């Protein structure tokens, strides 16, 4: 092997032929998309209207020229890093790797990876590629295993791939996964030859681990969605197996074809034994499909015992029983004369009705009645090769390592600690020679188009220290990361016409705004610095109704945009009047937002609550995201910023239809809106706000809900404006839960706490007279039907104070109890609860204990302060508590009530 020897072929013959074929095909109408090309594709470049020199600069950065040709300035940090290869063996198919190394442009047309073996003669190419494979695969743990794709997940993945935005940079595909290649699509090729499921899922979830430069963004996919997209992209993976299955759920007694029955998952299974599928839930149907091998020809009988089933052999129906949810299993059988050899078999099995069970047996010549053994089943009548893990030969790997350095692979893939090859400095390059020439030689071959070579030649002299102003710098970044694939920016580019329809959304009433990502034109003058950073760097998503995700490119890669957008985008100053009476302004703003004013809430959500069907952006976040100047300009003339906007202009000619508010003046009313909305989550709810949301949110007054819950069937949840909440069990008169943040989800007759920092209290009543110091604390047993009334408890309801905080009322024997919680915010500290228990007792009440808290770790700092796991409890009245040790431990306050009224106060901090 002579890795550094001179080139043996004067290049590009095959590439030219391919290109020519493509053009011919295009001319004949065989291909309707831009031709296959071996030139490296940088998606954003194709669509942008940048000048040629900046395009050249982008190419220099995207092709990693600086990896070989050192340059001063910031070129190295701006340039795209090659994929990390240290665990390549865990994620790439060995056969693909070998082929890709041998001919990257043939294997994956459009790749930016140069061909480093092009100059080798045929006799050297293969062994060099083989040695490189052994070296690159030596790093993995041998985990790579192709798996059976799930056709159901793949169908969902098809929608996700196109809806989430993958297909804006990559080529759209048909439902079979066939790529529609294009000159503006980052090439993927037939991924089933390259990845296994696990590897692709991991990559989709954490792309920047392998490709740190963020060109492949992180779509922040949930695990399940990453799996679905992977199943879609790898749906042509073939692995051997006995039977294919598809699992359905729903009212399966209506049959698999019913609209209400949905396919849940698909895959391979070893036989018809139901246990091979793990837990099968009631109301499930399974469709099995495969081939059955008959060894001895003759009459074969199939015995089924099922609730419902349909058996077909070679497309012929042998047995059928319609499922029913109103009866149990029945026996049936079917028979056929079968030749020796493979026969197509399909069985629909319905797991429904009373005590569902499944038995399926075969009986035939020399085959006694038995379940069909796996050895007679296959998903194909043709052999499917088994994947054999790659065996790394250390001698070959050593040679590969040598070639990896000598060929220059290590210059870009610098994570394997192999010494790079040296090359001339960038400033000294001659654009007519080496990799920029059309000649072949011992240099990387990119197959650049003539246009690309020209762009690079123009940019080369200044590539190290380009003199870009802010605007050009901004445009260059937006093109490099292909932001313009999804966002329109006037003068730079935007969504491709043939991909526009791929954008979808869940709120059709919003028109294009409900499906297209927002334009970036003047976005720096629209969003606050925080607003931009939230979306760009922190994964914040304001438009939940768009199916497309806002992907994350990594702060190191696009963090500079936050300031750059603000510096470049400017708008004229809007006339903003100063409002001096702030409470009056807020009140006017609230009226404008509500149903009796402009009825903004008819379309917009407010603090997560949706009033109409439209579901437009949440108004309570507006002032944090938007610049006030833009808010004023936009409201005066919405169509200026969104030509297709649905929102009407409410102040034509600067006058409002609502003349009773702030004199009907546009500027003052808009400013009042802003002032009101500045209260954010704490803004008082506008009038007419819908109560249809399942999330109950707390604004400036407490909210309360009751029903079946983690606090019992008679639960009461109270949410407080300081964002701390409690759940009380009115069945046992006991505090059951504290939490922070979001309040509850409610449904008819039930609620479920949301939020964080939950403190739970175990079942049981609060007050009790312990018979002995080690007596158990009472709680409701299964047969204690009269509990806790038999302990003297009666719930009496609650009253709301002027702030709408409830005082809970109950009785413990002859003692009347008023139980009041108040949310308090300590100066510069977190909010906490102050609890006041007022007792009204007749004379002579025996002493009792109040169990305040229970926990694994209970500690008293003195008789008034206790730490119970994460809860800090303080008694602020004259009472003292004790710790009753045990597992769990308890904080008890002994109470000897005087006649008449007395008060116990506590503080809960956590």
């Amino acid at each position, binding site marked *: 092997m002579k890795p550094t020897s001179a080139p043996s072929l004067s290049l590009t013959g095959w590439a030219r032929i391919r290109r020519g074929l493509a053009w011919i095909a295009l001319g004949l109408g065989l291909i309707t998309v831009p031709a296959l090309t071996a030139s490296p594709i940088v998606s954003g470049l194709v669509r942008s209207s940048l000048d040629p020199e900046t395009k050249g600069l982008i190419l220099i950065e995207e092709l990693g020229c600086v990896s070989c040709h050192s340059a001063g300035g910031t070129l190295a940090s701006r340039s795209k890093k090659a994929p990390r290869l240290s665990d390549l063996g865990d994620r790439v198919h060995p056969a693909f790797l070998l082929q890709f190394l041998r001919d990257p442009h043939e294997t994956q047309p459009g790749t930016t990876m140069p061909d480093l073996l092009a100059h080798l003669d045929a006799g050297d190419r293969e062994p060099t590629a083989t040695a490189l494979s052994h070296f690159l695969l030596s790093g993995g743990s041998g985990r790579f295993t192709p798996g059976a794709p799930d056709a159901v997940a793949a169908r969902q993945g098809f929608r996700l791939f196109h809806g989430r935005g993958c297909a804006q940079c990559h080529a759209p595909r048909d439902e079979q996964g066939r790529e529609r290649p294009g000159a503006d699509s980052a090439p993927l090729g037939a991924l089933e030859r390259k990845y296994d499921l696990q590897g692709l899922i991991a990559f989709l979830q954490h792309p920047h681990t392998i490709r740190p430069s963020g060109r492949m963004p992180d779509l922040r996919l949930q695990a399940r969605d990453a799996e679905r997209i992977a199943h879609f992209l790898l749906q042509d993976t073939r692995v051997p197996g006995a039977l294919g299955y598809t699992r359905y759920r729903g*009212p399966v007694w209506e049959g698999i074809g019913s609209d209400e029955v949905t396919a849940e998952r698909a895959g391979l299974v070893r036989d018809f034994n139901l246990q091979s599928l793990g837990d099968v839930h009631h109301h499930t149907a399974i469709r099995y499909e495969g081939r059955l091998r008959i060894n001895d020809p003759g009459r074969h009988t199939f015995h089924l015992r099922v609730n419902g089933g349909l058996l077909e052999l070679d497309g012929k129906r042998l047995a059928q029983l319609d499922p029913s949810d109103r009866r149990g299993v029945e026996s049936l059988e079917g028979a056929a004369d079968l030749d020796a050899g493979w026969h197509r078999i399909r069985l629909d099995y319905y797991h429904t009705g009373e005590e569902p069970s499944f038995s399926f047996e075969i009986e035939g010549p020399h085959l006694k009645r038995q379940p069909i053994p796996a050895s007679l089943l296959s998903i194909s009548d043709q052999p499917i090769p088994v994947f054999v893990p790659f065996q790394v030969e250390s001698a070959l790997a050593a040679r590969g390592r040598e070639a990896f350095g000598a060929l220059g692979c290590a210059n870009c893939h610098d994570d394997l600690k192999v010494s790079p090859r040296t090359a001339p400095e960038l400033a000294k390059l001659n654009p007519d020679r080496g990799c920029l020439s059309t000649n072949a030689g011992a240099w990387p071959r990119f197959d650049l188009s003539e246009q690309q070579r020209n762009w690079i030649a123009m940019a080369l002299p200044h590539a190290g220290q380009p003199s870009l102003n802010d605007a050009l710098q901004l445009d260059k970044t937006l093109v490099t990361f292909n932001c313009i694939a999804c966002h329109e920016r006037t003068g730079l580019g935007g969504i491709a016409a043939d991909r526009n329809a791929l954008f979808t959304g869940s709120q059709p009433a919003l028109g294009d705004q409900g499906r297209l990502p927002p334009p970036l034109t003047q976005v720096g003058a629209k969003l606050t610095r925080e607003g931009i950073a939230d979306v760009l760097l922190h994964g914040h998503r304001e438009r939940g109704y768009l199916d497309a995700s806002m992907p994350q490119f990594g702060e190191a890669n696009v963090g500079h945009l936050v300031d750059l957008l603000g510096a470049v985008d400017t708008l004229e100053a809007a006339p903003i009047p100063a409002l001096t009476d702030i409470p009056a302004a807020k009140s006017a703003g609230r009226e404008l937002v509500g149903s009796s004013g402009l009825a903004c*809430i008819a379309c917009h959500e407010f603090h997560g609550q949706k009033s109409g*069907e439209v579901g437009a952006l949440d108004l309570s976040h507006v002032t944090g995201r938007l610049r006030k100047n833009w808010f004023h300009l936009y409201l005066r003339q919405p169509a200026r910023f969104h030509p297709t906007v649905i929102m009407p202009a409410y102040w034509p000619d600067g006058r409002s239809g609502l003349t009773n508010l702030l004199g009907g003046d546009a500027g003052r009313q808009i400013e009042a809106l802003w002032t009101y909305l500045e209260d954010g989550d704490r803004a008082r709810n506008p009038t007419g706000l819908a*109560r249809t949301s*399942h999330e109950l949110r707390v604004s400036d007054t407490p909210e309360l809900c009751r029903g079946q819950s983690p606090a019992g*069937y008679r639960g009461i949840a109270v949410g407080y404006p300081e964002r701390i909440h409690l759940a009380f069990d009115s069945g046992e008169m006991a505090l059951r839960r504290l939490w922070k943040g979001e309040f509850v989800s409610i449904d*008819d007759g039930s609620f479920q706490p949301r939020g964080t920092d939950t403190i739970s209290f175990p079942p049981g009543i609060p007050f009790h007279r312990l018979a002995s110091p080690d007596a158990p604390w009472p709680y409701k047993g299964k047969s204690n039907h009269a509990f806790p009334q038999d302990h003297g408890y009666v719930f*009496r309801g609650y009253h*709301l104070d002027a702030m709408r905080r409830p005082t809970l009322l109950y009785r413990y024997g002859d003692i009347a109890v008023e139980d009041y919680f108040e949310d308090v915010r300590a100066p510069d500290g977190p909010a906490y609860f102050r609890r006041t228990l007022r007792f009204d007792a007749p004379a002579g009440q025996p002493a009792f204990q109040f169990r305040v808290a229970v926990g694994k770790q209970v500690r008293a700092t003195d008789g008034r302060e206790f730490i119970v796991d994460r809860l800090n409890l303080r008694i602020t009245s004259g009472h003292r508590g004790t710790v009753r040790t045990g597992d769990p431990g308890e904080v008890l306050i002994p109470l000897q009530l005087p006649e008449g009224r007395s008060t116990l106060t506590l503080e809960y901090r956590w």
Partner: protein
Amino acid sequence: MVALRHAILVLALSMVCGIPRVLRADEDLGARWGTAEEEAKYYPIVSIPIPSGIPLRPGGLEILPDGRLAVGTRRGDIYFIRGAFDSPPRPEYHLFASGQDEIFSLSWRDGALTATTWSEVTRISDEDGDGVADRYDTLTSSWGYAEYHEFAFASKHDPAGNLWVALGLSSSYESHNLFRGWAVKVTPDGRMIPVCSGLRSPGGVGTNAQGAMFVIESQGPWNGCCSLKHLKEGAFLGHPASYNWYPYAPGLKAPELEPNSDSRMGVEKRRVRELVPPAVKFPYIRMGRSISGFRVDTTGGKFGPFAGQLFLGDYSLSLVLRATLEQVNGVWQGACYPFREGLATGIMNVEFSPKGQLIAGGFTTSRQWPVRGTEPFALQRIDWNGVVPFEVREISIRKDGFVVSFTQPVDPAVAARTNTYQVTTFTHVYHAGYGSPEVDQTTAKIVRAVPAADGLSVRLHLDRVIEDHVHEFDLGGITSPEGKHLLHAKAYYTVNEIPPE
């Protein structure tokens, strides 16, 4: 969790509404009466608009002293609606109270609304007079509530200020928690007094014109069909799963005997002294399949010719039924009649407006639960337009037959012919199994038919009247002197007792 709860509620409703648990969305709800178009000529249905932001799934309905309509909802809100009774309706909604558990019944008395929910009876009032409730005083929560089927429906206040609350079983077959399957009386000072055992899954409580308290019961175990049952104090009403709570009911002694299964109500009521038979049985499907809230017509004729009769909503079939009651040998019994079909949703409750309109409200729960009306929730009104329909007004028993009265005179010649009438009878198996087929069918012989001089009634003499049988009347042959046929030809009289004279 929310989804699970939803599924459970579906299941729960299937219990309360007295239909089999496993149902298909497309399951046949039974044939319509086919009379909606004709009914509309006398009783048009008017929808009361609901703004899009208000999840108004009505459970409890009440008329406030100021004439507004109060609606308690599944979400636990109470709205006061002004203008609901205008024509056309111009409703203005005011949220009076919120944050309650699902509300099934509302009743106003002494400046407060009393709401009955799954868990308790709550007296709700506005102490500071700002129009929004601020006091929620629990009158009682002393019944067990720890399972998903344990509904609680209450009456209006009786003259003594008590509410009568009917508590559904824990499931069709069992009573796991205190007083499930009982009716209790809740006094104004919050005492809970157990009154009757033996309920299965009631759906509404109310009085008749004479002030006797009744409960509507669902088809299911020990209940061959839905029925109206008299809440006679100390009575056992048919389903023995709730016998276990007698030790907790001071002053009430458990019946010495349990009913035998696979028997007949007529047999068992003689064995089990406390057993009170259903007053009106509603043949399944033909006369509703999940009957819910009902009200007696106290409009004094503003709602047409049926003053003093009961009007009952049906959840599954989205219709309203009519019933009449009379006391014979100290036992209540009576008949049921078709009234109005074609409402928009599953009817949970009905209420009469001061103008004599019948308000009907309700909701559907999900696509798995079959309801004929298609709206997820609705508030509607049945108005009487002043035109008297040609209807059976009432059937009343006699020693050897019945008196059938009409809203308009019948053709005396037709009415005097015995072959104008078909009267068949049947009963149900009284057993622990779910529902019952109709059994022991007979065909009655009409011996004589004697129209009254004014043509407004006919005295029918039968060869025999059979105790414990529903007598099904087909009056399709009756015509008016102008040859008009009855709007509804069917009626069903439940015979518990036969009068001596």
